[in-house]
């Protein structure tokens, strides 16, 4: 992991028209009440939170008021959509409802794995980009798919660490590293983060940001956990920009090897 020259730790992340100094994007799924939502947004110091779109009768409509009172931007998602067609319509509804052309594009294959459907995802991404959207696709950790998503004009790529809600952490760091090394757009790890160390690892690998929900919202103490993730993301980014040492097979003494006292007989 080579040192990146002349990049400041606090340099902002630019996605579309947004400029974020916080590298932690917070999902709101699993939040138990509005006070907790306010608390975790504040504690995490996030500047961007995701929301889902659902039929009006089935939902609590005031989440937007809570988010806006926290003075953070909203990133609507297309969670639950299984076809490009449904995802495109959901994104268009989100743009109309929330007045943002940013979308976290999610097209899942099934309800068991919640893994992205790559074919539908790419189709939807292409359509939404041509419709003027700033598209942030939730994708698998496949470097080739990430490249294809970038080539159709996505504003970022968001590979999973592990399946949604599992908390398993980065299952394939090698694949993630390949995505980071070839991407010209921001790489945001999205899904599967369970512990702050996972988030720090993602940032150490050179990712630009981390998106997580469950790890905070379903923790016993969400506000405290939000702080832990805030610190972890910052630590990982700081490390990535500080030139981490190369791994070695054998030990290398850090104390002077000369000037030792006379060794005693064995």
């Amino acid at each position, binding site marked *: 992991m080579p040192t990146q020259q002349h990049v400041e730790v606090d340099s902002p992340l630019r996605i579309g028209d947004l400029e974020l100094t916080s590298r932690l994007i917070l*999902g*709101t*799924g*699993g*939040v138990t009440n509005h006070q907790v*939502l306010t608390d975790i947004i504040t504690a995490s110091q996030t500047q961007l939170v*995701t*929301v*889902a*779109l*659902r*039929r*009006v*009768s*089935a*939902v*609590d*409509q005031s*989440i*937007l008021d809570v988010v806006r009172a926290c003075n953070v931007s*909203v*990133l*609507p*998602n297309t*969670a639950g959509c299984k076809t490009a*067609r449904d995802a495109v*319509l*959901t994104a*268009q*509804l*989100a*743009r*109309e*409802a*929330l007045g943002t052309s940013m979308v*976290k594009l*999610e097209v899942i294959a099934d309800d068991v794995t919640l893994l992205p459907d790559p074919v539908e995802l790419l189709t939807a991404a292409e359509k939404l980009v041509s419709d003027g959207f700033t598209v942030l696709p939730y994708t698998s950790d496949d470097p080739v798919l990430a490249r294809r998503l970038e080539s159709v004009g996505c504003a970022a790529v968001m590979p999973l660490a592990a399946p949604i809600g599992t908390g398993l952490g980065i299952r394939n760091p090698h694949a993630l590293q390949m995505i980071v090394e070839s991407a010209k757009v921001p790489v945001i790890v999205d899904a599967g983060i369970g512990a702050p160390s996972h988030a720090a690892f993602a940032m150490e690998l050179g990712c630009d940001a981390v*998106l997580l*929900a469950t790890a905070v919202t379903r923790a016993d103490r969400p506000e405290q956990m939000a702080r832990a993730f805030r610190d972890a993301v910052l630590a990982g980014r700081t490390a990535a920009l500080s030139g981490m040492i190369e791994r070695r097979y054998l030990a290398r003494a850090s104390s002077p090897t000369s000037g030792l006292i006379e060794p005693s007989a064995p």
Partner: protein
Amino acid sequence: MTDRTATNNLTVTLNGVATELPHGAHVSDVVVHALKGVSSSGVAVAVDGVVVPRSSWSATAVAHGSTIELVTATQGG
């Protein structure tokens, strides 16, 4: 022959539920019906898979048999 326009309601599928609306209803009427007076801020509407912008709600008549979706933001992601 009866005067259908004066007496008959129209039926639409509103958020998955068959719903009777007065003949001549517009999208704006559907929104009021669905929200029961709650503010429509943050709400978007699609009719037969096409988004109807808020600015067109009161000018867009609803056809019998339409599929209408009314959505808003909720926690997720």
